[in-house]
């Protein structure tokens, strides 16, 4: 009997130890499981953050593109405004003096020109004659002979070439050399003069796109505005009759 009791007590103790071991093992497994879940949760979180990061990068890139586009549009708007004002002012007067003043103002105020001369062809003498200037005394400007390819100094050769070819000359890069630009003045399909841009304001180092557009506008419209103003003055402000205009329209 004693032997059986001792055997039972020993079994009981062994079973108790076993239960304790199993409980410990269970606790360890629970901890490990919790750790795995935490890692899985963290991995999920990392994935979400990566997606957020990609979204943010994409948004930042889109914003940068929009900012660039905004700057471009702003610049285009500025160009259109300048061209609109230039065109408006060029044809806003039928007085030669005012038209010339507007041409000078356009170049000085909108482009940043420091000195310029406006020349008109004297067909009989084959000379370009300076009629107005800004930033330089008009009386100091020489007449430029049109020699059809003859030898003359650098500035005169360039002006003559611009006048003869009707091709706008604009100095590329820094405008240290003179002239900085030469604009042929066209009336219908013939050149009747030229505007010579001698120098730019100190801060204006080079021409930009809108400057070239303004030069083209002046080249195409300034001569017309000048001649119209002159004819209007000669006509003493008399408007052609409707009949005369109708006949010319026919």
């Amino acid at each position, binding site marked *: 009997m004693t032997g059986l009791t001792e055997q039972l007590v020993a079994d009981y103790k062994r079973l108790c130890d076993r239960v304790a071991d199993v409980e410990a093992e269970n606790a360890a497994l629970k901890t490990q499981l919790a750790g795995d879940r935490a890692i899985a949760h963290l991995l999920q979180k990392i994935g979400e953050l990566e997606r957020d990061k990609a979204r943010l990068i994409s948004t930042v890139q889109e914003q940068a593109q929009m900012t660039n586009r905004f700057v471009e549009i*702003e610049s285009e*708007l*500025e160009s259109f*405004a*300048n061209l*609109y*004002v*230039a065109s*408006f*002012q060029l044809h*806003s007067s039928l007085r030669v003096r005012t038209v010339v003043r*507007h041409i000078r*103002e*356009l170049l000085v*105020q*909108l*482009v*940043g020109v420091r000195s310029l001369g406006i020349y008109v062809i004297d067909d009989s003498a084959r000379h370009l004659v300076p009629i107005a200037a800004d930033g330089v005394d008009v009386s100091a400007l020489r007449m430029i002979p049109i020699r059809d390819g003859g030898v003359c100094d650098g500035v005169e050769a360039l002006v003559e070439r611009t006048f003869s070819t009707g091709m706008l000359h604009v100095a590329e890069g820094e405008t240290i050399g003179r002239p900085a630009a030469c604009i042929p003045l066209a009336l219908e399909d013939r050149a009747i003069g030229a505007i010579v841009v001698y120098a730019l*304001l*100190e*801060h204006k180092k080079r021409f930009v796109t809108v400057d070239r557009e303004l030069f083209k506008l002046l080249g195409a419209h300034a001569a017309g505005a000048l001649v119209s103003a002159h004819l209007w003055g000669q006509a003493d402000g008399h408007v052609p009759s409707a009949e005369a205009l109708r006949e010319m329209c026919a």
Partner: protein
Amino acid sequence: MTVQYSCLVVEDSPMMRQLLVLALSRLKSLQITEADDGVDGLRKLAAGKFDIILTDINMPIMDGLKLVKRVRSDPAHKDVPIIVITTEGSSEDRQRALQLGANAYITKPIQAPQVIAKVRELLRIDA
């Protein structure tokens, strides 16, 4: 309701005036009045109330510096912000204008965003 501000642009050159008005008209809350020179500017100031003045410096009859001086000595307008428009190389004029009480200056050739930013800053208009 949008707050309305009134702006006086004093400039003798029609071209520059048109450019300034064109730039400022992008601010919808601004009502613009134009004046040909300083005397015309003072006449328009006497006839109305203005929140800001933009003036050129080199003008016939009465230049921008005299205008700034006259505006600052007038109790009715002494606090109105004034922006002077100067040409490059006229730093003396700029300094003189600021000494006389101008709040800011813009150098020609003017750029619309610069004009708008300066007016917004002085009138505290949000972008």
